[in-house]
């Protein structure tokens, strides 16, 4: 099990003061979740590693723009989101997968609700890949770091209603897969 340090325990204040050790702790804490998020969006190993490294450097250089220390995680993922968007723009300028859609009122349960059995794993990951990038992104942010709707809205720049709608749709799609009787 990965060691998860609570936001309050993260040495953000020390990092602000330029403490290299503090940055090392912060980077180590977020490197795997950040890589997972980026990889599941861009699907390329080296690009994902480059983006993670760029995120770390950008975070250290622009730490002054972080207002609340407790929001370091969502702020860092916001940087990663921007880097992914830049990557998509470079690849195909007309295919940046950011779209607006109608807000739906849906219930959004906690991140721990989806449990996947060993037999379902491959199918589940394949289903995740079939989701559109905006839906996948919202789902990843919600489950990997347990960000709230408002935090995800802040990371992606979309409205909270849109995030709620995307999350509802994505979870429905995955739930449908998990409740389907195995053949």
């Amino acid at each position, binding site marked *: 099990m990965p060691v998860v340090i609570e936001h309050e325990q993260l040495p953000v204040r020390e990092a602000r003061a330029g403490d290299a050790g503090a940055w090392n702790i912060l980077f180590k804490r977020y*490197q795997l979740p950040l890589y*997972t998020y980026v*990889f599941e969006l861009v699907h390329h190993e080296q690009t994902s590693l480059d983006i993670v490294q760029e995120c770390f450097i950008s975070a250290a250089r622009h730490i002054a723009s972080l207002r609340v220390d407790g929001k370091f995680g969502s702020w860092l993922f916001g940087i990663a989101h921007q880097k992914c968007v830049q990557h998509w723009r470079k690849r195909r300028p007309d295919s940046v997968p950011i779209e607006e859609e109608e807000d739906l009122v849906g219930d959004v349960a906690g991140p721990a609700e989806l*449990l996947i059995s060993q037999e379902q794993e491959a199918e589940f990951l394949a289903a995740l890949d079939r989701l559109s990038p905006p839906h996948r992104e919202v789902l990843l942010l919600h489950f*990997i770091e347990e960000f709230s709707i408002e935090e995800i809205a802040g990371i992606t720049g979309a409205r909270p209603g849109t995030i709620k709608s995307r999350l509802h749709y994505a979870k429905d799609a995955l739930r449908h897969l998990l409740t389907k009787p195995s053949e």
Partner: protein
Amino acid sequence: MKTFKELLLERHRGMEPKLDAARKRALAELEQPEAKPSWRDFLISLRWHLAGLSAVWLVFIVLTFDSHAETTMVMARDKIPPAPVLRAEWIEKRLELMELTQAPGETEPAALPPRRSEILSRFEFV
């Protein structure tokens, strides 16, 4: 049974050594002082903006001069008097010029009275 988070993180756990290396590279880069951009770099970065602005100013200046010249020509054309007046003025000026340029005594005034001796000799012959 696994949660979504566990499944995803386990899927990428094999990347940890590479992520450690990326983290160390990032930390090493942060330890290097950030190069401060010089004035030269700043101006070079603005070269296209400066070129664009210069072009705009050039067009503006050319258009301003052009419209100025046109206005001056229109004003001059409006002030030209009709041809007969011009001709009369020209003759008058020419006469004035001739008077000024002729040396004194070069022409005798036509209505000067004859000399007294000439008048007397005329009477004598009669």
